[in-house]
């Protein structure tokens, strides 16, 4: 009872605080923290889910009304949650370490970017493109299919590889996709090279919603769908087959698990989530170029999965949120704060901050954040923050 009151109070208070101080990063972090608290608190299920629904469906858009940037952050978090859940299938459930995951995201993004922009005219001639806005919804499925097929194409040749060799080959595959995106502006101009593709059409929004809110709700819808699919998969015979492969390939095969089919299915499922989000990402950004699909992004998504706990759905959601918020808000916020202090001529222990080198920009240290997360998690808590139940038992040695 006390916990129930506490959670309701905390959510309401933090939402109010965000409305009052729309510029304060700390307050927004408090709001996000209150949602995690709701998820973990010992309260009746109906209360938990209605609180989360109210917070995500009403409070978050309302906060976005006061400060549009927060809605953007929430949308980004949603995109990365879907990516982390997709990678979670490949790495967490099936135990295939994929270091080139962002390639599937790129496939989805380019599928809509090419056909949803005038760029397709360059390839096919004529002036029939861009496709009308409603095609976007069709392309959500086209992107899903294209990414799934790419996943199978990658999976086929590497099926025989295990563990670390597989990781390196998927890394190479991710780089190949990026290099292709960078250079396929000749002999046929498919991707427009490093210049990228723009303008990419957006779908017409229902009820005259502004695009910020529209993409937020669309991402939320997709994330909910992805979570449901993931939960259903986890306990299906497919999910169990994946976990069996992860634990012991030989034993799984002896028990009649069709290795080839299951591994390909893991690649295809994981890839398809990234494909859908890629389509959405390209429409949201209006402009894409190969810079959005680097190895850094793949490792970022991996860090999310590892932080939350491999094979754990709530873990992937939490990991994606924490890492995205760290990058988008904490690092940037620290940078801005430092700049303000610099401009104000503050001195710390006799050292004037204005003397800090200009090249020292805390916002640029994403890699260090990812690196520290990966190493510390591996050494101290390899099962992640919210371990998967089965995994927890396995690692309890």
């Amino acid at each position, binding site marked *: 009872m006390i916990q129930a009151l506490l959670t309701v109070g905390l959510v309401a208070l933090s939402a109010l605080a965000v409305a009052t101080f729309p510029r304060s990063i700390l307050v927004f972090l408090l709001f996000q923290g209150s949602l995690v608290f709701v998820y973990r608190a010992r309260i009746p299920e109906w209360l938990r889910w209605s609180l989360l629904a109210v917070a995500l469906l009403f409070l978050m858009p309302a906060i976005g009304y006061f400060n549009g940037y927060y809605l953007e952050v929430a949308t980004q978090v949603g995109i990365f949650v879907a990516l982390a859940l997709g990678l979670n299938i490949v790495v967490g459930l099936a135990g295939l*370490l994929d*270091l080139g995951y962002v390639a599937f995201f790129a496939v989805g993004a380019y599928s809509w970017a090419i056909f949803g922009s005038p760029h397709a005219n360059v390839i096919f001639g004529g002036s029939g493109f861009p496709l009308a806005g409603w095609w976007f919804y069709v392309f959500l499925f086209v992107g899903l299919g294209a990414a799934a097929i790419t996943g199978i194409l990658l999976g086929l040749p590497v099926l025989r590889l295990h563990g670390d060799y597989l990781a390196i080959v998927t890394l190479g595959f991710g780089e190949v996709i990026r290099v292709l995106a*960078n250079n396929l502006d000749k002999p046929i101009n498919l991707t427009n090279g490093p210049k990228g593709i723009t303008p990419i059409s957006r779908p017409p929004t229902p009820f005259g919603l502004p695009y910020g809110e529209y993409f937020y709700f669309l991402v939320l819808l997709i994330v909910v769908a992805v979570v449901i699919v993931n939960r259903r998969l986890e306990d299906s015979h497919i999910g169990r087959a994946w976990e069996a492969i992860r634990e012991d390939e030989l034993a799984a095969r002896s028990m009649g698990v069709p290795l080839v089919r299951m591994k390909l299915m893991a690649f295809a499922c994981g890839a398809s989530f990234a494909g859908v989000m890629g389509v959405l990402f390209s429409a949201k950004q209006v402009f894409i170029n190969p810079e959005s699909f680097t190895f850094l992004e793949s490792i970022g998504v991996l860090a999310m999965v590892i932080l939350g706990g491999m094979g754990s759905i709530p873990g992937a959601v939490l990991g994606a949120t924490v890492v995205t918020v760290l990058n988008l808000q904490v690092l940037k916020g620290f940078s801005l704060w430092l700049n303000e202090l610099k401009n104000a001529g503050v001195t710390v222990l006799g050292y004037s901050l204005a003397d800090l080198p200009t090249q*020292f920009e805390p916002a640029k240290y994403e890699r260090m954040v990812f*690196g520290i997360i990966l190493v510390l998690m*591996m050494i101290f808590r390899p099962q992640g923050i919210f371990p998967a139940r089965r995994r927890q038992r396995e690692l309890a040695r």
Partner: protein
Amino acid sequence: MDVELLVRIFPEVLLDGIILGFMYALIALGYTMVYGVLEFINFAHSEIFIAGAFVGVEILLGLKSAGLLDALPWPIVLVLVLIAGMAASGLLAVTVERIAYRPLRGAPRLIPLISAIGISFFLQDLIRLVESLWRNAFNLVYPTIDVLNLRFELTQTTDVSVKSLVVIAGALAMLGALHLIVNRTKVGTAIRAVAEDQAAASLMGIDVNRIISLTFLIGGAMGGAAGVLFGVQYGLINPYSGFIPGLKAFTAAVLGGIGNIPGAMLGGLVLGLLEAFAAAYLSLLTGGAFGAEYKDIFAFSVLILILIFRPKGLLGEVVRERA
């Protein structure tokens, strides 16, 4: 197709390929030695390599600002820089092993690999952080030593610079020294014993942990030497420029048969030559449709094909599957 042009650039491309190949060979040794002993891909080796390049450039810049760069004879400067780069990278590799790999020994196979990826990313930004605070720049240029840029004419159309010769000589010396250490000394025997069977080696009175540290030290030092030579040869370095050469050197190690020291040298040379020829000839042969940009794809395709069709590499033994 301009056959005459193809023939004319051949010696130059060959030379480029050999230099690149020796560079890959030196880096590949770090991967292959560690893999031989621990069956583990030291993903952070590319940063250990570039750390050597940074220590080298710092010393050269320091000497330059002290006015000693032109005063001291250039071979002494080079040897000094090489030794410093090797020491720094070797110690870095040992530290990394101690902190991030040793606690994970015996864990499921992917766990140390993920830790190594984390260290790799951490080191990239750490180098950037240190250089940003110290020099307010992290894209650094190796100071030129005039003697190194002198060029000898080989044929009418080809010439070779002193630094290319120095790089080749340096790489050869390193590879030779390593060969002697591994095959002719007691320590080398111990390293080979640990690679063969850790449990049996420890029963024979070999301190396995020390030998593993030593392996990282030697592999790291080779990487550091490669870093300094990389800086001398190509000039511009930044904290992220170790990643792609590292990946390619790993490819070279796999190509030669991972865990196999002569294999890494051979694999490095083969990959360097393949890449140099791909970079030079791809665009000429396809009429400009595909250019040198595709040389990375080329190297990765080699890796994928080798792993699929001949996972033991050119010289390798059969790779054992660890349970």
